[in-house]
Protein backbone atom coordinates (compact mmCIF):
# COMPACT_ATOMS: atom_id res chain seq x y z
CA UNK A 1 0.00 0.00 0.00
CA UNK A 2 2.85 2.34 0.80
CA UNK A 3 4.36 1.62 -2.61
CA UNK A 4 1.09 2.47 -4.28
CA UNK A 5 0.99 5.78 -2.41
CA UNK A 6 4.50 6.59 -3.54
CA UNK A 7 3.65 5.57 -7.07
CA UNK A 8 0.68 7.92 -7.16
CA UNK A 9 2.74 10.71 -5.64
CA UNK A 10 5.43 10.12 -8.24
CA UNK A 11 2.87 10.33 -11.04
CA UNK A 12 1.37 13.52 -9.67
CA UNK A 13 4.79 15.13 -9.41
CA UNK A 14 5.84 14.07 -12.90
CA UNK A 15 2.66 15.34 -14.45
CA UNK A 16 3.24 18.49 -16.41
CA UNK A 17 -0.33 19.73 -16.42
CA UNK A 18 -0.07 22.16 -13.56
CA UNK A 19 -3.07 23.60 -11.90
CA UNK A 20 -1.27 25.79 -9.42
CA UNK A 21 2.02 27.53 -8.73
CA UNK A 22 3.00 25.30 -5.78
CA UNK A 23 2.51 22.25 -7.96
CA UNK A 24 4.76 23.77 -10.63
CA UNK A 25 7.47 24.41 -8.08
CA UNK A 26 7.20 20.96 -6.53
CA UNK A 27 7.49 19.43 -9.96
CA UNK A 28 10.72 21.27 -10.69
CA UNK A 29 12.19 20.27 -7.35
CA UNK A 30 11.17 16.66 -7.85
CA UNK A 31 12.69 16.42 -11.30
CA UNK A 32 15.93 17.86 -9.93
CA UNK A 33 15.86 15.27 -7.15
CA UNK A 34 15.33 12.41 -9.61
CA UNK A 35 18.30 13.56 -11.63
CA UNK A 36 20.44 13.84 -8.53
CA UNK A 37 19.66 10.27 -7.54
CA UNK A 38 20.50 9.08 -11.01
CA UNK A 39 24.08 10.32 -10.69
CA UNK A 40 25.78 8.06 -8.13
CA UNK A 41 28.82 10.21 -7.40
CA UNK A 42 26.80 13.36 -6.99
CA UNK A 43 24.36 11.52 -4.78
CA UNK A 44 27.22 10.24 -2.65
CA UNK A 45 28.48 13.81 -2.33
CA UNK A 46 25.01 14.93 -1.38
CA UNK A 47 24.74 12.25 1.29
CA UNK A 48 28.03 13.23 2.87
CA UNK A 49 27.05 16.91 2.91
CA UNK A 50 23.72 15.91 4.41
CA UNK A 51 25.58 13.81 6.99
CA UNK A 52 27.71 16.83 7.83
CA UNK A 53 24.62 18.91 8.41
CA UNK A 54 23.02 16.22 10.54
CA UNK A 55 26.16 15.62 12.59
CA UNK A 56 26.52 19.33 13.20
CA UNK A 57 22.87 19.66 14.20
CA UNK A 58 22.79 16.65 16.48
CA UNK A 59 26.31 17.03 17.87
CA UNK A 60 25.25 17.01 21.50
CA UNK A 61 23.43 13.72 20.95
CA UNK A 62 26.19 12.10 18.91
CA UNK A 63 29.17 13.06 21.03
CA UNK A 64 29.81 10.72 23.91
CA UNK A 65 32.25 12.93 25.77
CA UNK A 66 32.58 16.60 26.54
CA UNK A 67 34.75 18.08 23.79
CA UNK A 68 36.30 20.73 25.96
CA UNK A 69 36.82 18.94 29.24
CA UNK A 70 40.48 18.25 29.82
CA UNK A 71 41.77 15.18 31.60
CA UNK A 72 45.49 15.03 31.50
CA UNK A 73 45.57 11.49 32.85
CA UNK A 74 43.93 10.36 29.66
CA UNK A 75 46.22 12.25 27.30
CA UNK A 76 47.27 10.76 23.96
CA UNK A 77 45.40 7.51 24.33
CA UNK A 78 44.98 5.54 21.07
CA UNK A 79 41.52 4.66 19.67
CA UNK A 80 39.62 2.34 22.02
CA UNK A 81 36.03 1.38 22.77
CA UNK A 82 35.80 4.33 25.17
CA UNK A 83 37.49 6.90 22.95
CA UNK A 84 36.64 5.87 19.42
CA UNK A 85 39.26 8.07 17.82
CA UNK A 86 41.55 8.31 20.81
CA UNK A 87 42.36 11.39 22.89
CA UNK A 88 44.50 14.43 22.26
CA UNK A 89 47.32 15.95 24.29
CA UNK A 90 44.86 17.40 26.81
CA UNK A 91 42.93 14.17 27.23
CA UNK A 92 39.97 15.40 25.25
CA UNK A 93 38.07 12.84 23.20
CA UNK A 94 38.95 13.26 19.55
CA UNK A 95 35.64 11.79 18.29
CA UNK A 96 33.57 14.27 20.26
CA UNK A 97 35.79 17.14 19.16
CA UNK A 98 35.39 15.95 15.58
CA UNK A 99 31.61 15.94 15.91
CA UNK A 100 31.51 19.41 17.45
CA UNK A 101 34.09 20.51 14.91
CA UNK A 102 31.54 19.72 12.23
CA UNK A 103 29.50 22.58 13.64
CA UNK A 104 32.39 24.96 13.24
CA UNK A 105 33.02 23.82 9.69
CA UNK A 106 29.39 24.12 8.75
CA UNK A 107 29.08 27.47 10.47
CA UNK A 108 32.02 28.89 8.54
CA UNK A 109 30.89 27.46 5.16
CA UNK A 110 27.32 28.64 5.48
CA UNK A 111 28.24 32.07 6.77
CA UNK A 112 30.77 32.64 4.00
CA UNK A 113 28.23 31.57 1.40
CA UNK A 114 25.53 33.78 2.81
CA UNK A 115 27.85 36.80 2.73
CA UNK A 116 29.50 36.15 -0.60
CA UNK A 117 26.52 35.21 -2.75
CA UNK A 118 24.52 38.45 -2.53
CA UNK A 119 27.52 40.77 -2.49
CA UNK A 120 29.33 39.04 -5.34
CA UNK A 121 26.17 38.86 -7.37
CA UNK A 122 25.24 42.48 -6.73
CA UNK A 123 28.63 43.75 -7.81
CA UNK A 124 28.80 41.55 -10.89
CA UNK A 125 25.24 42.15 -12.02
CA UNK A 126 25.55 45.90 -11.61
CA UNK A 127 28.75 45.93 -13.60
CA UNK A 128 27.20 43.80 -16.32
CA UNK A 129 23.94 45.67 -16.53
CA UNK A 130 25.18 49.23 -16.43
CA UNK A 131 28.36 48.75 -18.38
CA UNK A 132 30.50 51.78 -19.10
CA UNK A 133 32.68 53.21 -16.39
CA UNK A 134 30.71 51.50 -13.60
CA UNK A 135 31.70 48.20 -15.17
CA UNK A 136 35.32 49.25 -15.47
CA UNK A 137 35.64 50.48 -11.89
CA UNK A 138 33.92 47.48 -10.33
CA UNK A 139 35.83 44.99 -12.40
CA UNK A 140 39.20 46.52 -11.64
CA UNK A 141 38.40 46.35 -7.94
CA UNK A 142 37.51 42.70 -8.49
CA UNK A 143 40.76 42.16 -10.34
CA UNK A 144 42.75 43.60 -7.47
CA UNK A 145 41.21 41.11 -5.06
CA UNK A 146 41.64 38.30 -7.55
CA UNK A 147 45.30 38.94 -8.10
CA UNK A 148 46.24 37.89 -4.59
CA UNK A 149 46.62 34.20 -3.75
CA UNK A 150 43.55 33.49 -1.66
CA UNK A 151 45.27 31.99 1.35
CA UNK A 152 47.73 34.86 1.59
CA UNK A 153 44.92 37.38 1.34
CA UNK A 154 42.84 35.55 3.96
CA UNK A 155 45.86 35.43 6.22
CA UNK A 156 46.48 39.12 5.82
CA UNK A 157 42.88 40.04 6.58
CA UNK A 158 42.68 37.60 9.44
CA UNK A 159 45.85 38.92 10.98
CA UNK A 160 44.65 42.49 10.56
CA UNK A 161 41.24 41.76 12.03
CA UNK A 162 42.53 39.59 14.82
CA UNK A 163 41.90 35.98 15.75
CA UNK A 164 38.40 34.56 16.06
CA UNK A 165 35.90 32.72 13.93
CA UNK A 166 33.86 35.68 12.77
CA UNK A 167 36.98 37.47 11.60
CA UNK A 168 38.08 34.34 9.81
CA UNK A 169 34.74 34.24 8.06
CA UNK A 170 35.08 37.84 6.94
CA UNK A 171 38.62 37.23 5.78
CA UNK A 172 37.64 34.17 3.76
CA UNK A 173 34.58 35.90 2.32
CA UNK A 174 36.79 38.70 1.06
CA UNK A 175 38.77 36.23 -1.00
CA UNK A 176 35.83 34.22 -2.31
CA UNK A 177 33.58 36.93 -3.73
CA UNK A 178 35.57 37.95 -6.86
CA UNK A 179 34.91 34.82 -8.93
CA UNK A 180 31.22 35.07 -8.07
CA UNK A 181 31.17 38.69 -9.20
CA UNK A 182 32.83 37.75 -12.47
CA UNK A 183 30.38 34.94 -13.02
CA UNK A 184 27.42 37.17 -12.26
CA UNK A 185 28.72 39.78 -14.65
CA UNK A 186 29.22 37.25 -17.44
CA UNK A 187 25.75 35.82 -17.00
CA UNK A 188 24.21 39.27 -16.83
CA UNK A 189 25.91 40.25 -20.06
CA UNK A 190 24.59 37.12 -21.73
CA UNK A 191 21.04 37.60 -20.63
CA UNK A 192 20.94 41.35 -20.92
CA UNK A 193 20.47 41.08 -24.66
CA UNK A 194 17.96 38.24 -24.52
CA UNK A 195 14.58 38.87 -26.07
CA UNK A 196 12.69 38.36 -22.84
CA UNK A 197 14.73 41.03 -21.10
CA UNK A 198 14.25 43.41 -24.02
CA UNK A 199 10.53 42.66 -23.91
CA UNK A 200 10.40 43.59 -20.24
CA UNK A 201 12.35 46.79 -20.91
CA UNK A 202 9.96 47.67 -23.71
CA UNK A 203 7.15 47.34 -21.24
CA UNK A 204 8.77 49.81 -18.90
CA UNK A 205 10.70 47.57 -16.51
CA UNK A 206 13.52 49.34 -14.72
CA UNK A 207 16.95 48.04 -13.88
CA UNK A 208 15.97 46.78 -10.43
CA UNK A 209 13.13 44.66 -11.68
CA UNK A 210 15.17 43.24 -14.50
CA UNK A 211 18.15 42.35 -12.37
CA UNK A 212 16.21 40.89 -9.47
CA UNK A 213 13.29 39.27 -11.20
CA UNK A 214 14.79 38.25 -14.51
CA UNK A 215 18.51 37.82 -14.15
CA UNK A 216 18.81 36.42 -10.63
CA UNK A 217 16.79 33.28 -11.39
CA UNK A 218 18.92 32.63 -14.43
CA UNK A 219 22.25 33.22 -12.71
CA UNK A 220 21.30 31.27 -9.64
CA UNK A 221 22.26 27.82 -10.96
CA UNK A 222 25.77 28.82 -12.01
CA UNK A 223 26.36 30.72 -8.84
CA UNK A 224 25.10 27.86 -6.71
CA UNK A 225 27.34 25.46 -8.58
CA UNK A 226 30.31 27.76 -8.27
CA UNK A 227 29.77 28.26 -4.56
CA UNK A 228 29.43 24.53 -4.00
CA UNK A 229 32.65 23.88 -5.84
CA UNK A 230 34.35 26.67 -3.93
CA UNK A 231 33.17 25.21 -0.66
CA UNK A 232 36.04 22.82 -0.47
CA UNK A 233 38.56 25.61 -0.76
CA UNK A 234 36.64 27.59 1.87
CA UNK A 235 36.92 24.65 4.23
CA UNK A 236 40.56 24.20 3.43
CA UNK A 237 41.29 27.89 3.91
CA UNK A 238 39.48 27.84 7.23
CA UNK A 239 41.46 24.77 8.18
CA UNK A 240 44.62 26.54 7.07
CA UNK A 241 43.79 29.57 9.17
CA UNK A 242 42.99 27.31 12.10
CA UNK A 243 46.24 25.50 11.50
CA UNK A 244 48.10 28.79 11.80
CA UNK A 245 46.34 29.86 14.94
CA UNK A 246 44.04 32.38 13.35
CA UNK A 247 40.35 31.63 13.00
CA UNK A 248 38.85 29.37 15.62
CA UNK A 249 40.55 29.82 18.94
CA UNK A 250 41.15 27.12 21.58
CA UNK A 251 39.37 25.45 23.19
CA UNK A 252 36.81 25.55 20.37
CA UNK A 253 37.18 22.39 18.26
CA UNK A 254 37.98 23.10 14.62
CA UNK A 255 39.30 20.48 12.27
CA UNK A 256 42.23 22.52 10.98
CA UNK A 257 43.34 23.58 14.44
CA UNK A 258 43.05 19.97 15.57
CA UNK A 259 45.24 18.84 12.72
CA UNK A 260 47.76 21.55 13.53
CA UNK A 261 48.11 20.77 17.18
CA UNK A 262 48.46 17.10 16.36
CA UNK A 263 51.48 17.75 14.18
CA UNK A 264 54.01 17.54 16.92
CA UNK A 265 52.68 14.12 17.95
CA UNK A 266 52.38 12.81 14.45
CA UNK A 267 54.68 9.81 14.88
CA UNK A 268 53.33 8.68 18.25
CA UNK A 269 49.70 9.71 18.09
CA UNK A 270 48.83 9.59 14.38
CA UNK A 271 45.10 9.82 15.06
CA UNK A 272 45.35 13.42 16.19
CA UNK A 273 46.15 14.77 12.73
CA UNK A 274 44.89 11.95 10.54
CA UNK A 275 41.30 11.84 11.74
CA UNK A 276 40.48 15.53 11.28
CA UNK A 277 42.52 15.42 8.07
CA UNK A 278 40.32 12.65 6.68
CA UNK A 279 37.22 14.53 7.75
CA UNK A 280 38.41 17.63 5.85
CA UNK A 281 39.21 15.48 2.83
CA UNK A 282 35.83 13.75 2.81
CA UNK A 283 33.80 16.89 3.18
CA UNK A 284 35.79 18.79 0.55
CA UNK A 285 35.48 15.88 -1.85
CA UNK A 286 31.77 15.62 -1.15
CA UNK A 287 31.22 19.28 -1.97
CA UNK A 288 33.18 18.89 -5.17
CA UNK A 289 31.20 15.86 -6.27
CA UNK A 290 27.95 17.54 -5.38
CA UNK A 291 28.94 20.67 -7.27
CA UNK A 292 29.86 18.63 -10.34
CA UNK A 293 26.61 16.74 -10.13
CA UNK A 294 24.64 19.95 -9.77
CA UNK A 295 26.30 21.31 -12.85
CA UNK A 296 25.25 18.26 -14.86
CA UNK A 297 21.71 18.50 -13.58
CA UNK A 298 21.18 22.20 -13.76
CA UNK A 299 23.14 23.45 -16.73
CA UNK A 300 21.74 21.49 -19.67
CA UNK A 301 18.30 22.51 -18.65
CA UNK A 302 19.15 26.14 -18.74
CA UNK A 303 17.57 28.08 -21.55
Amino acid at each position, binding site marked *: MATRYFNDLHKWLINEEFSSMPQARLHKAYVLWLNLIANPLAFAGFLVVLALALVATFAPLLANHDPILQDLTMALKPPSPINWFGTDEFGRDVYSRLVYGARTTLYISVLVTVIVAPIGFAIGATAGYLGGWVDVVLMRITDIFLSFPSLVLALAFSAALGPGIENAVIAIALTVWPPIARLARAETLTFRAADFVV*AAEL*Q*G*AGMGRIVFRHIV*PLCAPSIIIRLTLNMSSVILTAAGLGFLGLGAQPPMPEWGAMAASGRQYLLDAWWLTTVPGIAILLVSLAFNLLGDGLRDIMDPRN*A
Partner: protein
Amino acid sequence: MSIISVNDLAVSFGSGSDFKQVVKNVAFDVEPGETFGLVGESGCGKSTVLGALAGRIKGWSGSVSIDGEGVGPKRSRSQLAKQQMVFQDPFGSLHPRHTIGRTLLEPLEIHGLDQRQERVERVLRDVGLPPAFRHRFPHQLSGGQRQRVAIARALILNPRILLLDEPTSALDVSIQAEILNLLKDLRERDKLTYVLVSHDMAVIAHLCNRVAVMLDGQFVEVASREQLLQGSVQHPYTRTLLDGSRGYVPRRKSAS
Protein backbone atom coordinates in the same frame (compact mmCIF):
# COMPACT_ATOMS: atom_id res chain seq x y z
CA MET B 1 -3.59 61.48 -39.74
CA SER B 2 -0.83 58.90 -39.75
CA ILE B 3 -0.40 56.92 -36.63
CA ILE B 4 3.30 56.46 -37.34
CA SER B 5 5.39 59.06 -39.09
CA VAL B 6 9.07 58.58 -39.74
CA ASN B 7 11.41 61.05 -41.40
CA ASP B 8 15.14 60.98 -42.06
CA LEU B 9 15.65 57.98 -39.84
CA ALA B 10 19.30 56.96 -39.71
CA VAL B 11 20.93 54.39 -37.44
CA SER B 12 24.60 53.63 -37.14
CA PHE B 13 26.62 51.42 -34.84
CA GLY B 14 30.19 51.53 -33.70
CA SER B 15 32.77 54.17 -34.33
CA GLY B 16 36.05 54.58 -36.12
CA SER B 17 36.98 51.50 -38.12
CA ASP B 18 33.94 49.67 -36.74
CA PHE B 19 31.49 52.22 -38.01
CA LYS B 20 28.49 50.87 -39.82
CA GLN B 21 25.58 52.86 -41.19
CA VAL B 22 22.83 50.30 -40.89
CA VAL B 23 19.86 52.48 -41.79
CA LYS B 24 20.33 55.37 -44.16
CA ASN B 25 17.67 58.00 -44.38
CA VAL B 26 14.41 56.13 -44.24
CA ALA B 27 11.02 57.84 -44.33
CA PHE B 28 7.50 56.46 -44.28
CA ASP B 29 4.05 56.97 -42.85
CA VAL B 30 1.63 54.37 -41.60
CA GLU B 31 -2.12 55.00 -41.46
CA PRO B 32 -4.22 53.75 -38.55
CA GLY B 33 -5.43 50.21 -39.20
CA GLU B 34 -2.87 49.67 -41.94
CA THR B 35 -0.35 46.85 -41.99
CA PHE B 36 2.97 48.11 -43.24
CA GLY B 37 5.64 45.62 -44.22
CA LEU B 38 9.42 45.80 -44.25
CA VAL B 39 11.01 43.13 -46.40
CA GLY B 40 14.60 42.41 -47.29
CA GLU B 41 17.45 40.01 -46.79
CA SER B 42 19.65 39.77 -43.75
CA GLY B 43 21.60 42.89 -42.94
CA CYS B 44 19.33 45.23 -44.85
CA GLY B 45 18.29 47.09 -41.72
CA LYS B 46 14.64 46.13 -41.48
CA SER B 47 14.82 44.86 -37.91
CA THR B 48 16.80 47.95 -36.97
CA VAL B 49 14.05 50.23 -38.25
CA LEU B 50 11.54 48.25 -36.21
CA GLY B 51 13.81 48.44 -33.18
CA ALA B 52 14.04 52.20 -33.45
CA LEU B 53 10.24 52.41 -33.63
CA ALA B 54 9.91 50.15 -30.60
CA GLY B 55 12.28 52.12 -28.43
CA ARG B 56 14.68 49.22 -28.30
CA ILE B 57 17.41 50.89 -30.32
CA LYS B 58 18.41 54.17 -28.84
CA GLY B 59 21.11 55.44 -31.17
CA TRP B 60 19.03 56.82 -34.00
CA SER B 61 18.66 60.24 -35.57
CA GLY B 62 15.77 61.76 -37.45
CA SER B 63 12.18 62.27 -36.36
CA VAL B 64 9.66 59.69 -35.31
CA SER B 65 6.12 60.46 -34.30
CA ILE B 66 3.77 57.84 -32.87
CA ASP B 67 0.06 58.45 -32.37
CA GLY B 68 0.51 62.16 -32.90
CA GLU B 69 3.32 62.55 -30.39
CA GLY B 70 6.96 63.05 -31.33
CA VAL B 71 9.14 60.50 -29.55
CA GLY B 72 12.82 60.41 -28.80
CA PRO B 73 15.26 57.58 -28.10
CA LYS B 74 14.20 57.47 -24.45
CA ARG B 75 10.54 56.69 -23.95
CA SER B 76 8.21 57.21 -21.04
CA ARG B 77 6.08 54.35 -19.76
CA SER B 78 2.93 55.61 -21.41
CA GLN B 79 4.78 56.06 -24.68
CA LEU B 80 6.08 52.50 -24.50
CA ALA B 81 2.57 51.18 -24.00
CA LYS B 82 1.44 52.54 -27.36
CA GLN B 83 3.42 50.08 -29.41
CA GLN B 84 4.46 46.61 -28.33
CA MET B 85 6.76 44.16 -30.02
CA VAL B 86 6.42 40.50 -30.92
CA PHE B 87 9.80 38.84 -31.35
CA GLN B 88 10.97 36.28 -33.83
CA ASP B 89 12.20 33.51 -31.61
CA PRO B 90 9.41 32.00 -29.53
CA PHE B 91 11.98 30.17 -27.43
CA GLY B 92 13.92 33.27 -26.52
CA SER B 93 11.17 35.78 -25.95
CA LEU B 94 9.77 34.23 -22.78
CA HIS B 95 11.72 34.02 -19.55
CA PRO B 96 12.50 30.33 -19.06
CA ARG B 97 12.02 30.43 -15.30
CA HIS B 98 8.80 32.42 -15.17
CA THR B 99 5.42 30.85 -15.58
CA ILE B 100 3.24 32.24 -18.32
CA GLY B 101 1.06 33.95 -15.74
CA ARG B 102 4.08 35.65 -14.24
CA THR B 103 5.22 36.87 -17.64
CA LEU B 104 1.79 38.29 -18.40
CA LEU B 105 1.33 39.88 -14.99
CA GLU B 106 4.58 41.78 -15.20
CA PRO B 107 3.50 44.57 -17.55
CA LEU B 108 0.35 44.98 -15.48
CA GLU B 109 2.45 45.36 -12.34
CA ILE B 110 4.80 47.84 -13.99
CA HIS B 111 1.96 50.01 -15.20
CA GLY B 112 -0.09 49.62 -12.03
CA LEU B 113 -3.19 48.31 -13.76
CA ASP B 114 -6.06 46.71 -11.89
CA GLN B 115 -8.10 43.53 -12.41
CA ARG B 116 -4.93 41.70 -13.16
CA GLN B 117 -6.16 38.12 -13.12
CA GLU B 118 -9.10 39.01 -15.33
CA ARG B 119 -6.90 40.75 -17.84
CA VAL B 120 -4.53 37.80 -17.96
CA GLU B 121 -7.37 35.37 -18.52
CA ARG B 122 -8.94 37.53 -21.14
CA VAL B 123 -5.78 37.96 -23.13
CA LEU B 124 -5.04 34.23 -23.00
CA ARG B 125 -8.50 33.52 -24.36
CA ASP B 126 -7.99 36.13 -27.07
CA VAL B 127 -5.00 34.27 -28.39
CA GLY B 128 -6.73 30.91 -28.18
CA LEU B 129 -5.01 29.44 -25.11
CA PRO B 130 -6.80 27.96 -22.08
CA PRO B 131 -6.49 30.08 -18.91
CA ALA B 132 -4.95 27.10 -17.11
CA PHE B 133 -1.76 27.74 -19.09
CA ARG B 134 -1.00 30.45 -16.56
CA HIS B 135 0.85 27.94 -14.45
CA ARG B 136 2.95 26.41 -17.18
CA PHE B 137 6.53 27.12 -17.99
CA PRO B 138 7.66 28.06 -21.50
CA HIS B 139 9.51 24.81 -22.04
CA GLN B 140 6.24 22.95 -21.69
CA LEU B 141 4.68 24.83 -24.55
CA SER B 142 5.13 24.24 -28.26
CA GLY B 143 6.61 26.93 -30.52
CA GLY B 144 3.18 28.01 -31.70
CA GLN B 145 1.83 28.23 -28.18
CA ARG B 146 4.81 30.28 -27.08
CA GLN B 147 4.29 32.67 -29.92
CA ARG B 148 0.65 33.03 -28.88
CA VAL B 149 1.84 33.92 -25.39
CA ALA B 150 4.21 36.46 -26.91
CA ILE B 151 1.30 38.00 -28.78
CA ALA B 152 -0.79 37.95 -25.59
CA ARG B 153 1.98 39.74 -23.76
CA ALA B 154 2.12 42.33 -26.50
CA LEU B 155 -1.62 42.89 -26.31
CA ILE B 156 -2.08 43.04 -22.59
CA LEU B 157 -1.27 46.75 -22.35
CA ASN B 158 -3.82 47.51 -25.08
CA PRO B 159 -1.40 49.09 -27.54
CA ARG B 160 -2.63 50.59 -30.78
CA ILE B 161 0.35 49.32 -32.73
CA LEU B 162 1.99 45.92 -32.87
CA LEU B 163 5.55 45.68 -34.15
CA LEU B 164 6.09 42.18 -35.48
CA ASP B 165 9.64 41.02 -36.08
CA GLU B 166 9.46 37.89 -38.24
CA PRO B 167 6.74 36.49 -35.99
CA THR B 168 6.32 33.24 -37.89
CA SER B 169 9.77 32.55 -39.31
CA ALA B 170 10.63 30.05 -36.61
CA LEU B 171 7.32 28.21 -36.82
CA ASP B 172 6.15 25.21 -38.77
CA VAL B 173 3.93 25.77 -41.79
CA SER B 174 0.73 24.63 -40.14
CA ILE B 175 1.40 26.65 -37.00
CA GLN B 176 2.34 29.67 -39.09
CA ALA B 177 -1.08 29.50 -40.70
CA GLU B 178 -2.77 29.54 -37.29
CA ILE B 179 -0.72 32.49 -36.10
CA LEU B 180 -1.29 34.45 -39.30
CA ASN B 181 -5.01 33.86 -38.99
CA LEU B 182 -4.88 34.92 -35.35
CA LEU B 183 -3.04 38.11 -36.26
CA LYS B 184 -5.63 38.91 -38.88
CA ASP B 185 -8.50 38.29 -36.46
CA LEU B 186 -6.97 40.45 -33.75
CA ARG B 187 -6.29 43.21 -36.22
CA GLU B 188 -9.90 43.16 -37.33
CA ARG B 189 -11.34 43.08 -33.85
CA ASP B 190 -9.16 45.67 -32.16
CA LYS B 191 -8.48 47.86 -35.20
CA LEU B 192 -4.76 47.48 -34.71
CA THR B 193 -1.98 48.88 -36.82
CA TYR B 194 0.82 46.46 -37.66
CA VAL B 195 4.38 46.99 -38.79
CA LEU B 196 5.61 43.63 -40.01
CA VAL B 197 9.19 42.69 -40.74
CA SER B 198 9.77 39.55 -42.77
CA HIS B 199 12.03 38.01 -45.37
CA ASP B 200 9.15 35.95 -46.74
CA MET B 201 7.29 37.68 -49.54
CA ALA B 202 4.31 35.35 -49.30
CA VAL B 203 3.71 36.22 -45.65
CA ILE B 204 4.11 39.91 -46.46
CA ALA B 205 1.61 39.71 -49.29
CA HIS B 206 -0.78 37.84 -47.04
CA LEU B 207 -0.85 40.37 -44.23
CA CYS B 208 0.31 43.72 -45.51
CA ASN B 209 -1.35 46.55 -47.35
CA ARG B 210 1.94 48.10 -48.38
CA VAL B 211 5.51 46.95 -48.13
CA ALA B 212 8.84 48.74 -48.20
CA VAL B 213 11.62 46.76 -49.84
CA MET B 214 14.93 47.39 -48.11
CA LEU B 215 18.39 46.91 -49.46
CA ASP B 216 21.51 48.07 -47.72
CA GLY B 217 19.74 50.37 -45.28
CA GLN B 218 17.48 52.10 -47.76
CA PHE B 219 14.07 51.67 -49.28
CA VAL B 220 14.37 50.75 -52.93
CA GLU B 221 10.63 50.57 -53.43
CA VAL B 222 7.36 50.83 -51.56
CA ALA B 223 4.87 48.52 -53.23
CA SER B 224 1.23 47.82 -52.62
CA ARG B 225 -0.21 44.37 -52.08
CA GLU B 226 -1.83 44.42 -55.49
CA GLN B 227 1.49 45.15 -57.11
CA LEU B 228 3.04 42.17 -55.37
CA LEU B 229 0.25 39.83 -56.37
CA GLN B 230 0.25 40.97 -59.95
CA GLY B 231 4.01 41.13 -60.16
CA SER B 232 3.87 44.71 -61.37
CA VAL B 233 6.73 45.86 -59.18
CA GLN B 234 9.27 48.35 -60.39
CA HIS B 235 12.62 47.66 -58.83
CA PRO B 236 14.58 44.60 -60.05
CA TYR B 237 15.50 43.68 -56.49
CA THR B 238 11.84 43.43 -55.58
CA ARG B 239 11.38 41.14 -58.52
CA THR B 240 14.29 38.99 -57.35
CA LEU B 241 12.70 38.64 -53.93
CA LEU B 242 9.35 37.76 -55.47
CA ASP B 243 10.84 35.10 -57.71
CA GLY B 244 12.92 33.70 -54.88
CA SER B 245 9.90 33.18 -52.70
CA ARG B 246 8.59 30.65 -55.17
CA GLY B 247 11.50 28.29 -54.58
CA TYR B 248 14.43 27.17 -56.62
CA VAL B 249 14.77 28.18 -60.24
CA PRO B 250 16.50 25.43 -62.23
CA ARG B 251 19.07 26.80 -64.60
CA ARG B 252 18.29 24.27 -67.28
CA LYS B 253 15.63 21.59 -67.65
CA SER B 254 16.53 18.18 -66.25
CA ALA B 255 18.26 15.93 -68.74
CA SER B 256 15.93 12.95 -68.73
